[in-house]
């Protein structure tokens, strides 16, 4: 008679020779903790009494988007229906109106790929295959609809219900977001010959202590019991600490880099006058960036207050004919009313330029990080709002070489292996440079724009020493660091992503 730890005893008892039993089922029946059952199984397997079989299975889970498709059909199917409803052909330029949406590229791609429509002289024409497809569900649709009914399912379960999984997945290639795929490992155990022999010779459960209790300690009884041995390889519960948002973490890293380098932090109003956002930066009033097309103007309130007249006039004169700066200026009539208009700031240079105007005396190093706005349509890489960083150095001995040196140090603090510079153009700096950082496997990545403020910017604000300036977005750094491919995920967060995004990356 062999004495076995209680769970090992239960496992061996439950097994018959040559018949594998699923661990999941055993856990359910016994009511025992999965980790304890697996520990016992491994212990038995280590002694050659049982064998553990692992089978990796593909599991699919439907998403919100997938559910939508299962209800409404694939977008190209709906497009096909619309085209057939309109006589079976539609001119390309009429497609957006016919399909009721602006961007029809995806539909057109699938319609032609599936051979449901063909392109004939500028028109999209439904084919016979397309007409037949209307009443017939393709393997992709069958797959999505079946998965929608089940919520989540294993590949082999789907197959056993008559779904052609392989064809479904092949047809869905190139489309994302309809379902999620996960690999799950199913385990089963079976009795070996040795195990079978041991069982035949007779086994019985031994009493073991799992939890050391206060009673055992106080009574001294602990001396007489055997402690169950744990298997450290087994999984335990997954814990997640509360965390700051990944984008916020990049912002904080940036702040730290600036603060460590002796910079003073400043802020400026999110809603600001065009004066501080554009005019003070020598951006002419007919510059395309100032147009309604690119910049958000504020309807209520409409106008803000400008600083002291002397300052405003000197900025205006510089636009018109260069004022006292030695520049030709932009040669147009500058308007105070346009400068009073309120906008959502398009960059945080509005904050650093305000700081410069407030106190232009060198030496100063100033930075600002804040939300900025550009009139972009929302898509995978664009949002109308984003976070921008901006730094300036006001210093008698500042020059292009020290701009490069400062930026190289700054981006090394941000994790770059190397930094390089390329000539570029920005309206308010001259010379200007684009800054690239080498980031591990990503290679050279564009980080920010930089330069020496033009005299037309600094002199009207009462500053007669060189001012170095640079600014750039933070989102792209965060996306690269946390492996996001869609900028929208930053501002409408998936809580699972927030939990999983590791603090150190």
């Amino acid at each position: 008679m062999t004495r076995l730890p209680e769970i090992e005893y239960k496992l061996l008892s439950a097994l018959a020779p040559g018949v594998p039993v699923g661990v999941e089922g055993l856990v359910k029946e016994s009511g025992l903790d999965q980790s304890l059952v697996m520990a016992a199984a491994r212990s038995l397997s280590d002694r050659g009494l049982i064998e553990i079989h692992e089978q990796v299975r593909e599991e699919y889970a439907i998403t919100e988007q997938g559910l939508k498709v299962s209800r409404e059909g694939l977008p190209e199917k709906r497009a096909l229906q619309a085209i057939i409803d309109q006589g079976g052909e539609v001119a390309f330029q009429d497609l957006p109106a016919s399909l009721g949406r602006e961007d029809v590229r995806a539909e057109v791609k699938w319609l032609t790929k599936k051979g449901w429509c063909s392109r004939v002289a500028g028109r999209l024409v439904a084919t016979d295959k397309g007409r037949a497809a209307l009443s017939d569900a393709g393997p992709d649709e069958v797959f999505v609809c079946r998965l929608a009914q089940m919520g989540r399912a294993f590949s082999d379960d789907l197959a056993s219900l008559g779904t052609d999984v392989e064809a479904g997945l092949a047809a869905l290639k190139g489309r994302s977001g309809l379902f999620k795929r996960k690999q799950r490992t199913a385990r089963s155990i079976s009795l070996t010959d040795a195990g079978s022999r041991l069982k035949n010779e007779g086994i019985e459960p031994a009493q073991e202590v799992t939890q050391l209790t206060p009673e055992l300690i106080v009574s001294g009884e602990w001396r007489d019991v055997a402690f169950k041995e744990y298997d450290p390889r087994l999984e335990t519960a997954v814990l997640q600490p509360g965390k700051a948002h990944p984008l916020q973490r990049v912002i904080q890293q940036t702040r730290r880099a600036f603060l460590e380098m002796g910079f003073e932090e400043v802020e400026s109003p999110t809603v600001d006058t065009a004066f501080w956002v554009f005019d003070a930066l020598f951006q002419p009033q007919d510059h395309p960036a100032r147009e309604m097309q690119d910049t958000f103007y504020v309807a209520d309130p409409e106008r803000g207050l400008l600083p002291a007249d002397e300052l405003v006039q000197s900025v205006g004169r510089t636009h018109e004919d260069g004022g006292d700066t030695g520049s030709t200026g932009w040669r147009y009539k500058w308007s105070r009313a346009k400068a009073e208009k309120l906008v959502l700031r398009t960059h945080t240079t509005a904050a650093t330029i305000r700081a410069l105007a407030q106190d232009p005396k060198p030496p100063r190093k100033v930075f600002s990080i804040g939300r900025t706005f550009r009139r972009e349509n929302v898509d995978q890489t664009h949002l109308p709002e984003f976070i921008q960083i901006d730094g300036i150095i006001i210093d008698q001995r500042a020059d292009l070489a020290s701009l490069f040196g400062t930026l190289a140090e700054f981006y090394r603090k941000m994790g770059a292996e190397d930094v390089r510079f390329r000539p570029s153009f920005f309206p308010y700096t001259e010379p200007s440079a684009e800054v690239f950082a080498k980031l591990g496997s990503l290679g050279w990545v564009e980080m920010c724009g930089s330069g020496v403020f033009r005299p037309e910017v600094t002199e009207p604000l009462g500053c007669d020493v060189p001012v170095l300036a640079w600014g750039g977005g933070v989102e792209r750094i965060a996306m690269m660091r946390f492996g996001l491919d869609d900028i929208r995920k930053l501002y409408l967060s998936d809580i699972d992503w927030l939990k999983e995004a590791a603090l150190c990356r």
Partner: protein
Amino acid sequence: MPLVGIPVSRLKQLLGKDLDRDDLQVALENLGNDVDGYAVVKRFRCDRCGEITEVLEHEDFNDLCAGCAGGDLVEIGSAEVVRIDLLPVRPDMLSAAGLARALRGFLGIETGLPEFKLSDSGFRVEVKSGMDEIRPYIVGAIVRGLRLGDEGLRMVMKMQENLHWALGRNRRRASIGVYDLGTIEPGFVFRPVKPDELKFVPLFGLPDSPRAELTPKQILKKHPKGIGYAHLLAGMSTYPLLTDSAGKVLSMPPIINSDDTKMTPETTDVFIDVTGPDRNAITRSLNVLVAALADMGGNVGKVEIKYPDGTSETTPDLTPARCELDPAEARRVLGLDLDAGKIAELLRKMRYGAKTEGSKVVVDIPAYRSDILHEQDIIEDIAIGYGYHNIEPRLVPTMTVSRALPVEEISEAVRRVMTGFGLFEVMTSVLVSEKEQFELMRLPVTPHVTLENPVSVEQTMLRTSLIPGLLSTFRANSTREMPQQIFECQDVFFLDSGAETGVRTRRRVAVGLTGPKVGFADVRALASALARELNAEAAFTAANHHSFITGRCARIDTRGEDTGILGEMHPEVLERFGLGQPVAVFEFELDHFIKAYA
């Protein structure tokens, strides 16, 4: 920024040197170009209007001609191009010819000021009275001896388009016309035309009728380009018209050319005009264009412009502008130890004329450079000539002391408290809608900052509360594991007529919990803890608020000031947000803590 594809073989031919792909890319980048990479384009010609279109090899495209919107495209060949992101600052580098000119200097093949030989064409443009109000200025040039072919024609069209974008402010400040000289009788007239005065065939006619004759008024209503640019002539009772001596229409600037005077691949001699309200912009545009055509082998002839007040001028004028540069200033800005001789050499490399005179450098700026406003612009070119990659980086030697903003320090403390309790921070949009902020929250609309030109109905105002953003986040995560606990620490905005910009910004933290068992006590406990960590006590008094369940809502006071609101969200709010689990929240204003910290 538009991307332009420069044909590689044409560029090398103009360059007079064979560079491999990598060397060419590096040279272009070191000159300040943003190179997107190499690609193969397929060229198509419209079987109806002759317009040439280029499409990337693997790109999906509409097989209709974009020019006349009616013809079918016939493939006529392909070419390797280097794709460059256009910068509006150097329109002279927007073409193969201009790029080659700059590269020849940069690579040391030919340095110094490029010379252009201009002859007198004997042609004249007479400006009639009445143009002052509608399109006051015109400049022009004749170019003979061009051998364009398909590629050359396409290059000229592209250059025109790029200049409209870079210098012309989309034709408002300057618009360019190029005509086949063989189709017109020299002696040109620039005059006002009445909307119904005459008819001509606009370029490519109409989509369904390629030879349609239209009046100026009909063009603005019916022709695709007319419709697209009609706003430039809005409110005018006469329109600008350019004709030849026989009265044949060349164009109706800035809208459209005549179909009868258009260029073909066989065209050798052209007349060019640039019109607009901005003398500077039209002169620059013409200079850039004729310089490029001269580099492509054309002989440039000058044209006399006669204004009705008796004044006249001869264009183009490619005389360089001369200025003096102080080498000490260049050394100061760049931090490079360069003497006058070296500076002059670098400037010649950048195609300036430059020689030393005593301690100064005398600089001749090419007439096609429209971007030189100040000595500083020339200094930048010295740095580019020197090579940014050759500049040794260093730090500013001056010591400064850092200082953090109290609002950010307090916010960081709040984030530490909240993450310590296991909450996850979210960041949501500042731009929101009245619907989300008020209607879904069961609240009356209160004064708020609104946008004049929103992009979508979802983003029309600046948020006044962080709570709706938390609820939307819960909605997006409704299939995720419960319970969920999140917070946001950001700004909200209110109208304030006393503020400089009419807006008051407040930093707040909002906390949201959702799940089958969350409730009032959970958020009350968190709010108390937050107040304690901010070194204050929170007092809670019953409050009425439409977003919360009656009797489960409290006002939060700290240090005797109204600090925020707390409670269980009203089921109707949950329903409106599409939420199926109870939610408890609090929102807490940090401003008096920030003031105390500062």
